[in-house]
């Protein structure tokens, strides 16, 4: 080993790279000598929280990850579930929060680019993108800049790629003002036999770098993602990568073509920590080593050091291990797409990641030491001291409104409830011509061409609930995602999650994380939706203020027969409106408390009775499959009244709701109308199907209430007496308030 002076190490420099002294000592122990600058840089990035999951890994073991339909669980570039007929769905969600906080357009765009590569590196053609977004309130000019920039970046990347952005969610809360969240999810479709993994098997096999050239952009991106944001963070702008969706489109087509050709042994995208993570992870998974001559890596500029080449996060690159006789053929495929493909090294049998510049070795360490043997931390946790006070809510002190019409209009115009059309009209959500149910519904539904099947997709998380009670909030995120899929007629299959939290070195944050993971695990077990992968994003804090704990759930489901899918819009005059589930007096954590009573986050979130949840979901799914239901919509933010209004708005049709005494006795009217009690779905059925439907519900012992009838042009709620109209408004007015709210705020 010749340690070049060029890469000699100044004492203490590891601390600037984010390593502790103890971690540095461990590195010395592993390699049996003083590491040089390049080696420390490589260890630092691979042992960063972002790459190593050193804090979260012990807890992530709680997730259920197996199931008869799971073909690939966590640990690969993306998870895979079987959908029958030899087909499978590949999917994953990932965060790009910190880049978006300082450069929203590129930060969000490259988040989309990265998640796309995670899916097509498995050999799948991406068929859908979703984005889960969190920003501060839009009355702040910088928030509007961040929000519009992020949406534009997402649109620019996805639209150019020709992958439809079909859904997601957008929430606004003060905690995200300085630290917005952008979580991008991608779903791909694949035949079982085409699945490729990120493994470097076959000693002597050539290792190739394909796609874009390596530049000095994005160096330290992973390290930047592993620290809190501060006023100095703008200086991190060079750590934000710059996206080139056209290059990625070429890379997508070339990679799928080369994978189909049978020449590929293993392939992995260069995401966080670029060449470093892709090489050591591929070697580590296969139990092999990789040797690369860095002088052969195509680069954008002269004079790049080994350190820069290994840590660059230049986008649109892949590392490919190919069969020994296939190099020429692989190059020809990339050449067709005007892309470079260069052999930079080979697979070795000694388990080492070895980097050279020509004959000179510049770094050498065991591949597994960078991945599996990264440090693990069991960090201390304790319940936040102020939580009990926050959870206390004296309902009696909250006055009930006098004018419910006004309250409903106010809620429909609240950005967390209002139409997100301003966002999704900027996304091409139809390209690929599979979009059967467009954005704005409970879940998006895509057809699978050539079959009768459909795939339903959603992302969900009410972070305010998670702040008020992370265990229940975590469970609700999973339950609501499943409920959304069921409302579209899909059987929930599996989830991916993106766990966005504050600084885990603080015991209160660690407690939130731990409780949320426990809640998600329990709900996934109960609903039989295993976790197939995802991403953890810590350090979402600025100036000592953390975001709400935000564990976003991305869930996919299967619609077995697309002719029996379902949407939320009320359909025809005379259809009967039925509430499945039970109303409770629960106002804690509600949008109503925030909008009407200026209580940002107060009380306990609604309780979740998972047994009831399962029964409600099974009953509704069965009824949809039997063709007894014309519309289905779950009650979420804004509660019963908002859900009913949304179904009217979506259907451009009115409805008369006559609430029987059994519903409103013993419960505050504002809680009944706007409380966010879980496990409730509003369905409609044709009058001649209603008897059958209700009989089935009775047989399944699922609670329900007949609420009223679809028809007319007004949305009306009365207490079983048309004289006592609590709410009576033209649907056109509701629609206008709901539809224009965000566009108005963005003007």
């Amino acid at each position: 080993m010749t340690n070049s002076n060029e890469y000699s190490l100044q004492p203490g420099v590891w601390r600037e790279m984010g390593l502790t002294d103890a971690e540095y000592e461990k590195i010395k122990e592993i390699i049996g000598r003083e590491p040089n600058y390049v080696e420390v840089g490589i260890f630092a990035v691979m042992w960063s929280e972002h790459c190593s999951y050193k804090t979260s890994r012990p807890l992530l073991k709680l997730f259920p990850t197996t199931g008869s339909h799971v073909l690939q669980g966590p640990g690969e570039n993306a998870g895979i579930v079987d959908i029958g007929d030899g087909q499978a769905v590949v999917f994953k969600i990932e965060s790009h929060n910190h880049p978006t906080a300082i450069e929203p357009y590129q930060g969000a765009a490259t988040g989309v680019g990265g998640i796309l590569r995670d899916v097509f590196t498995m050999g799948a053609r991406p068929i859908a993108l979703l984005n889960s977004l969190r920003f501060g309130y839009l009355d702040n000019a910088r928030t509007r800049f961040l929000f519009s920039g992020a949406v534009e970046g997402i649109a620019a990347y996805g639209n150019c790629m020709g992958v439809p952005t079909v859904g997601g969610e957008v929430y606004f809360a003060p905690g995200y003002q300085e630290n917005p969240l952008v979580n991008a999810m991608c779903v791909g479709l694949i035949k079982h036999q085409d699945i490729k993994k990120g493994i470097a098997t076959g000693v002597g096999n050539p290792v190739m770098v394909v796609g874009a050239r390596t530049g000095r952009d994005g160096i330290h991106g992973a390290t930047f993602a592993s620290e809190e944001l501060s006023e100095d963070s703008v200086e991190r702008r060079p750590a934000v990568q710059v996206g080139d969706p056209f290059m990625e489109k070429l890379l997508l087509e070339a990679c799928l073509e080369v994978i189909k050709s049978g020449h590929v042994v293993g392939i992995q995208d260069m995401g966080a920590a670029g060449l470093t993570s892709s090489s050591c992870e591929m070697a580590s998974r296969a139990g092999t080593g990789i040797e690369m001559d860095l002088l052969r890596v195509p680069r954008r500029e002269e004079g790049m050091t080994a350190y820069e080449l290994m840590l660059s996060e230049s986008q649109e690159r892949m590392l490919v291990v190919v069969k020994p006789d296939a190099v020429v053929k692989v190059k020809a495929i990339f050449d067709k797409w005007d892309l470079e493909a260069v052999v930079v090294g080979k697979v070795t049998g000694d388990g080492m990641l070895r980097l050279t510049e020509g004959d000179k070795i510049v770094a050498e360490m065991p591949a597994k030491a960078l991945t599996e043997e990264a440090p693990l931390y069991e960090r201390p946790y304790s319940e936040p001291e102020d939580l009990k006070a926050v959870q206390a809510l004296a309902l009696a002190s909250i006055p009930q409104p006098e004018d419910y019409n006004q309250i409903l209009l106010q809620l429909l115009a609240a950005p967390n409830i209002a139409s997100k059309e301003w966002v999704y009209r900027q996304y091409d959500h139809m390209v690929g011509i599979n979009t059967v149910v467009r954005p704005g519904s409970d879940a998006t539904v895509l057809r699978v061409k050539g079959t009768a099947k459909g795939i339903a997709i959603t992302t969900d998380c009410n972070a305010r609930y998670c702040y008020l009670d992370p265990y229940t909030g975590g469970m609700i995120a999973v339950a609501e995602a499943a409920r959304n899929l069921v409302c579209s007629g899909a059987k929930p299959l599996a989830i991916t999650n993106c766990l966005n939290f504050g600084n885990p070195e603080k015991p209160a944050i660690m407690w939130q994380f731990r409780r949320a993971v426990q809640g998600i695990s329990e709900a996934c077990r109960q609903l039989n939706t295993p976790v197939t992968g995802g991403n953890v994003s810590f350090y979402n804090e600025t100036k000592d203020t953390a975001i709400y704990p935000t564990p976003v759930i991305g869930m996919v489901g299967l619609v077995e027969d697309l002719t029996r899918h379902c949407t939320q819009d009320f359909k025809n005059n005379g259809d009967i409106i039925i509430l499945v589930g039970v109303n409770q007096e629960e106002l804690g954590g509600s949008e109503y408390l925030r909008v009407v009573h200026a209580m940002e986050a107060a009380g306990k979130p609604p309780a979740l009775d998972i047994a009831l949840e399962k029964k409600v979901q099974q009953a509704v799914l069965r009824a949809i499959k039997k063709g007894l239901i014309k519309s289905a919509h779950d009650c979420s933010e804004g509660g019963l009244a908002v859900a009913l209004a949304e179904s009217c708005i979506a259907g451009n049709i009115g409805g008369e709701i006559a609430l029987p005494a059994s519903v409103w006795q013993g419960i505050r009217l504002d809680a009944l109308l706007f409380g966010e009690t879980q496990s409730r779905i509003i369905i409609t059925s044709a009058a001649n199907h209603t008897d059958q439907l209700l009989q089935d519900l009775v047989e399944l012992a699922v609670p329900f209430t007949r609420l009223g009838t679809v028809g007319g042009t007004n949305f009306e709620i009365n207490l079983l007496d048309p004289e006592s109209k609590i709410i009576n408004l033209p649907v056109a007015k509701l629609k206008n308030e709901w539809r224009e709210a965000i566009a108005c705020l963005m003007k």
Partner: protein
Amino acid sequence: MMKFGVVVFPGSNCDADCLHVLKNVLGQPAEYIWHKYDSVVGFDCIVLPGGFSYGDYLRPGAIARFSPVMEAVIEFANNGGLVLGICNGFQVLLEAGLLPGAMRRNDSLQFRCHDTDLKVENTETPFTILCEPGQVLKIPVAHGDGNYYCDPATLKALNKNNQIVFRYCNQQGDVVAAANPNGSVDNIAGICNQNGNVLGMMPHPERCAEKILGNDASMILLNSVLAYWQRKVH
């Protein structure tokens, strides 16, 4: 049978959608034509699909028009061959000089993806012969640069020669500013050349040709092409 060719530029992304509709919905033979080919011999209709050819980093279509296949497409069009440019394909046709005018950024300065209503203004082109005059078709748009512009003299000529094929309108068929998604001159959504054999349109007919997607309004355009072809052959 009528043989369709769908040109694939680097960055085309509606090529597969067009091929699917032509083959599996319309039931006609259809093949991709790689942009580096220099011949389109054997095809009866050429489709330039939507997408972001060469990333649209310069003006949309400005680089694609230099692809080798475009010389062949121009020759094909000048000999009366049927050419349909959709979205980015329309932009390429403008850059290639097969249609007059130019595209600007949408007046909202944002990408727009939603359904639009189109008034069929010319029912004599091969692409619209089955339509009723003034018929309203619901066809979605998805573009950032669909703000069609031409100078007053050209607009006059387009009107005089009946080259404006589609205009954005409301559901009742009124051509009003509120129905215009991008600020295009005179609500223009699609135009043809003087002979009517070359059509460029911003909305995407391939996205509304199947009932399962909730809308098959564009089948009348596709069936028009077939009907035209049958009349021509017989």
